[in-house]
């Protein structure tokens, strides 16, 4: 059964190879056939894998592992490339290929005018391959392979418009920070192998005998005694990888910059799928996170701080994609909070609903940017509801969903997380309790902030009257051809642009190829929450996703009803409060006012984290390198070698004087020598 997954992996890989090698020569229709067709095939196979899993009873048997080939054998290390089909990987695959397919379709419209059309789709196919590999691998090494390859795909797509300095800088930043995560993951694998002698996950129940079929890090870890230091180090190292990939403090800095990539990329990679890999990893290896009592609280604390921190920045940003980027960071923090409460399925649930509504938000923002010819600044928008009806309505649904307004998808998953946090706070003892209370408070507060900044964005784009000057003539693409000349053209075009209502009529709704995915995602954002828990209504039999994931993730702690209602009520009140403030402030249209408020300035400038990092870390390092290059390499080592050479040549120059060629001198030397020898023996006696 797991071998079905091979057919999920192969089509996008083939698509990447075909487009990468031949894409330049293919017509657009052929490129789209390959790109869409491969992802559609992949989706169909993922769907059939999912359905075949549903057909298996009892639930605990819903796991299948297929070894494809042996990657390497080195001493006692054996690594096989194997695929694991279980409820968790099936869920992830559905989200990845499903949302991936919608975004592939959308991209045909968004990227229509880009000269790098074929390159874009080959990279996108490659990403789908890498991401499906990441979630379907049955061991940590191939997880790491997928982990690295999605990082590469992200690098290639952020830097897609490679002639823009900002895009290449952002791509570099993303790659280097992601490699820090790879570093953590590698060390975690080393540590696990050192103590457990395997890199496989293991499956089929606890099986503690090395070498047997079910033996792996997830099974062995639970029955093997690891020291307290090791059992804390393993989850923390894994979490370093998660923090880098899923943009958590302090490794989040790359994600806002990653918005330099084309918007469909931001939707697919930097919102819906790749950045959730960390959430997936925690869920997948949750056994390891429970080894140490400190691991999950640390994850929760980082997630909670990130959620709040990013939300405050999102409140102040003017670039619509940056608002969404910080919102993604914040929501990812939410997912980690849910997982830290032991409710991994809540984290995965929020992952899926977030994939719908955040992809929708980005694609909607993309439609706006597309219509405005590349404009991303909220100050140049407004009033677009008149011209972009479909985008407007779908965007509204996504905003309601992310703000946690019932009955949209985000409400259910967010509620699940907050309920789990409060349940955890009331059920654990000791000081950790206060942490979870704190996290719950952070979550509720963030829910309010989320509604506030999302409606600020919504009003800014669609309501009020139009503030801009019509679409930029340039097109959104930092186009491949003749960049130098075009830069000037843009400036003159901007100078001639008209402002106000008349310019609004130059703006058109996106073509159907873009709006159809918006509508589908809007439907998912509306009803996608229904697979979640209905425990709130004391109807605990209806929780399909939880039940489905339970064989992998275990059952989440049960909360009691009044507590859940308290949590729901609080978060709903905060969300409505946020909505209200946004309406009061921006309901008549977004007005930008320069603010002198120091807190505002601080958040607007992203707390100066980038600047501090450059000043404290990057610049000193490069300075050190340059100094060492000049002083150590040039001065000490090269100079030292020269000095030794010089010393030898001086020495031999001195020695050469003795070789006069006169016999009388040599005779004299012999005489002195003989005299000395005689003297020596005389003295010695």
């Amino acid at each position, binding site marked *: 059964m797991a071998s079905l997954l091979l057919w999920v992996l192969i089509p996008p890989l083939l698509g990447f190879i075909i487009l990468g090698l031949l894409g*330049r020569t293919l017509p657009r229709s052929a490129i789209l056939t390959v790109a869409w067709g491969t992802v559609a095939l992949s989706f169909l196979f993922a769907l059939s894998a999912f359905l075949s899993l549903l057909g298996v009873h009892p639930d605990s048997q819903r796991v299948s592992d297929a070894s494809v*080939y*042996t*990657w*390497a*054998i*080195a*001493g*006692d*290390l054996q690594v096989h490339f194997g695929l694991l089909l279980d409820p968790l990987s099936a869920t992830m695959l559905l989200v990845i290929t499903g949302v991936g397919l919608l975004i592939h379709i959308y991209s045909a419209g968004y990227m229509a005018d880009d000269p790098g059309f074929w390159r874009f789709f080959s990279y996108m196919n490659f990403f789908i391959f890498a991401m499906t590999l990441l979630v379907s691998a049955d061991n940590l*090494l191939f997880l*790491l*392979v*997928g*982990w*690295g*390859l999605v990082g*590469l795909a992200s*690098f290639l797509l952020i*830097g897609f418009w*490679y*002639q823009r*300095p900002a895009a*290449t800088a952002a*791509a*570099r930043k993303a*790659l*280097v920070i992601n*490699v*820090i995560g*790879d*570093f953590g993951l*590698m*060390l975690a*694998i*080393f*540590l696990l*192998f*050192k103590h457990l002698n395997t890199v496989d996950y293991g499956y089929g129940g606890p099986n503690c005998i090395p070498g047997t079929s079910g033996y792996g890090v997830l099974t062995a870890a639970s029955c093997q005694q690891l020291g307290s230091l090791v059992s804390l180090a393993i989850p923390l190292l894994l979490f370093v990888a998660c923090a880098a990939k899923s943009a958590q403090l302090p490794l989040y800095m790359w994600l806002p910059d990653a918005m330099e990539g084309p918007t469909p990329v931001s939707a697919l990679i930097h919102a819906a799928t790749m950045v959730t890999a960390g959430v997936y990893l925690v869920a997948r290896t949750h056994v390891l996170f429970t080894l140490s009592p400190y691991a999950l609280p640390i994850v929760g604390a980082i997630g909670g701080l990130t959620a709040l921190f990013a939300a405050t920045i999102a409140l102040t940003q003017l670039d619509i994609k940056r608002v969404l980027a910080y919102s993604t960071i914040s929501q990812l923090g939410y997912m980690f909070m849910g997982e830290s409460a032991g409710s991994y399925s809540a984290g995965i649930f929020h992952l899926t609903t977030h994939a719908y509504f955040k992809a929708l938000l980005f694609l909607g923002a993309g439609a706006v940017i597309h219509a405005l010819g590349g404009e991303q600044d909220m100050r140049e928008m407004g009033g677009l509801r008149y011209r972009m009806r479909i985008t407007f309505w779908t965007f509204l649904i996504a905003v309601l969903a992310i703000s946690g307004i019932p009955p949209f998808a985000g409400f259910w998953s967010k509620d699940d997380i907050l309920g789990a946090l409060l349940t955890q706070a009331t059920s654990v003892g000791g000081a950790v309790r206060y942490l979870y209370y704190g996290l719950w408070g952070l979550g509720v507060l963030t829910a309010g902030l989320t509604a506030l900044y999302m409606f600020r964005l919504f009003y800014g784009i669609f309501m009020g009257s139009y503030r801009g000057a019509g679409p930029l003539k340039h097109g959104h693409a930092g186009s*491949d051809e003749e*960049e*130098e000349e075009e830069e000037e053209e843009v400036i003159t075009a901007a100078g001639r642009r008209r402002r106000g209502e008349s310019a609004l009529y130059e703006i058109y709704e996106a073509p159907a190829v873009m709006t159809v995915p918006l509508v589908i995602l809007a439907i998912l954002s509306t009803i996608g929450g229904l697979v979640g828990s209905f425990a709130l209504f004391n109807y605990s039999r209806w929780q399909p996703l939880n039940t489905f994931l339970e064989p992998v993730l275990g059952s989440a702690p049960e909360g009691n009803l009044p507590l859940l209602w308290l949590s729901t009520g609080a978060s709903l009140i905060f969300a409505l409060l946020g909505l209200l403030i946004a309406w009061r402030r921006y309901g008549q249209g977004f007005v930008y006012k320069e603010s002198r408020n120091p807190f505002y300035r601080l958040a607007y400038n992203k707390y100066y984290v980038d600047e501090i990092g450059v000043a404290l870390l990057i610049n000193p*390092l*490069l300075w*050190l*390198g*340059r100094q*060492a*290059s000049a002083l150590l*390499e040039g001065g000490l*080592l*090269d100079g*030292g*070698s020269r000095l030794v*050479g010089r010393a030898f040549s001086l020495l031999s120059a001195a020695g050469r004087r003795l070789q006069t060629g006169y016999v009388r001198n040599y005779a004299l030397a012999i005489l002195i020598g003989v005299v000395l020898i005689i003297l020596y023996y005389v003295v010695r006696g």
Partner: protein
Amino acid sequence: MFPMLSTIIFLPLLGGIVVLLLPRERVNVIRWTALGVAWLDLLLALGVMLAYAQPHPTAITVGTVPLVVGEASPTVASVTFLLQEHLSWLPALGINYSLGVDGVSVLLMTLTTLLTVVCIAASFRVEQKLRTYLAFMLLLESGLLGVFLATNLFLFYVFWELMLIPAYFLVGGWGGPRRVYAAIKFVLYTAVGSFLMLAGIIALGYYYRTGGHYTLDLTTILNSSTHLNSTVQLWLFLAFAAAFAVKVPLVPFHSWLPDAYSEAPAPVTAMLAGAMAKAGAYGFLRYCLTLFPDAAHRLAPLISTLAVIGILYCALMALVQSDMKRLLAYSSISHLGVITLGIFALSAQGLASQQGIDGAVLQMVNHGITITALFLIVGFLEARTGTRRLEDYGGMARRLPIMASVLMIACLSSLGLPGLNSFAGEFLALLGVFRNNAVFGVLGTLVVVPAAWYMIRLVQNTMMGVRPAGGPVVAAERKGGLPDLDIGEFLVLLPLLVLIFYIGVHPLPLTFFVEH
């Protein structure tokens, strides 16, 4: 039995002589003869490799190497040499002509023959004193192959020095403006190390003498019951290590390398970095580790410390270079540090780590493939524009899309992207290191971060961004245009690219050779 290994070693030498005898004007005949010889040698080496991969009924385990300190050694690793050839030369001095292959040397032999084919094919643009150049390249191949195949220490030394001579002339004769300085520095550094090793070899023969005869045959020594006391081992280890540490090189014995690599013509640099640097690592593995296990155990922390310093320090150096070849030179030292670290990943009992050794050997092959590709691409780029400074470039991907893709792949391989070849080697080596010493493991693994940074810097500063107005690149474009990789250049790089992918996806065959 047919002297297969001798044929492989001396075929290039003979080919070189033939090339010298060809008429000067027949440039194409000269080129194709040299390339043909290199190809033939590669085919022979591949034949040996295939034969080695078969289950060998005639295998004679000629020695067991205690990898455990002290006499009571429960674990022994056997060293099996195949296709042995043995001719008495000066038996009283222990000097014999003996050759043999094991899994490690069969890989390095094949790598050397492959890289020679690639580098000779990449040298088709060389015009100045073509015959001599190609003869030296082939002689270099002979020397390298001898180093990897010799099983007598004196013979090893002869080949070791033989390898130096063509390298010296190639750097000094065909290099850039500072080539003479670079060549002399290279030779002096290497020679000092070699002479210490020669002293060590003589002493070793003396200690293992039997009945008044010196013994220098590796197989005899490994089978001998003589156990050197640890002080002797220490000094002999250091004498051997002097030669290897310069060749690899270990920091701080590396000062010759950036000069030599950046001054030599690109194909020669590729040979030096791709194949010759492996001779040092091979020496550590074959001689220092097996002949002097006690000393290796005692000195492993020292060597590992130097390796770790080299890994991180040279990564930092690579980060601030503006000359592309110097950047690659420092990256090369940094990566070789990982190999050394893997070789010396000894456990607390002095046992070598199987993952460490496997990873190190795998990485020798991988680094040979990747760094050769990188130096050749940079050479192709330099041939078009006449500059190696990163600041002069930018936005080349639009003009040179194929070259940009190839450079990208090579850089990704070099930075250890999972799924490509270097990842497999580095992962195994560092895993071995980490198991036995977490501190070295963590510090060694840390290199992936700066490695990603400087390699991406190389790709982005050349291929991406915006081309600076004016400067040599624009001048070159005005003069002759900037053609993308031509079919010949692409074919030169193709085998390397295929291997980058193949080994990354399926390294099993290579680890098989190391373990058998």
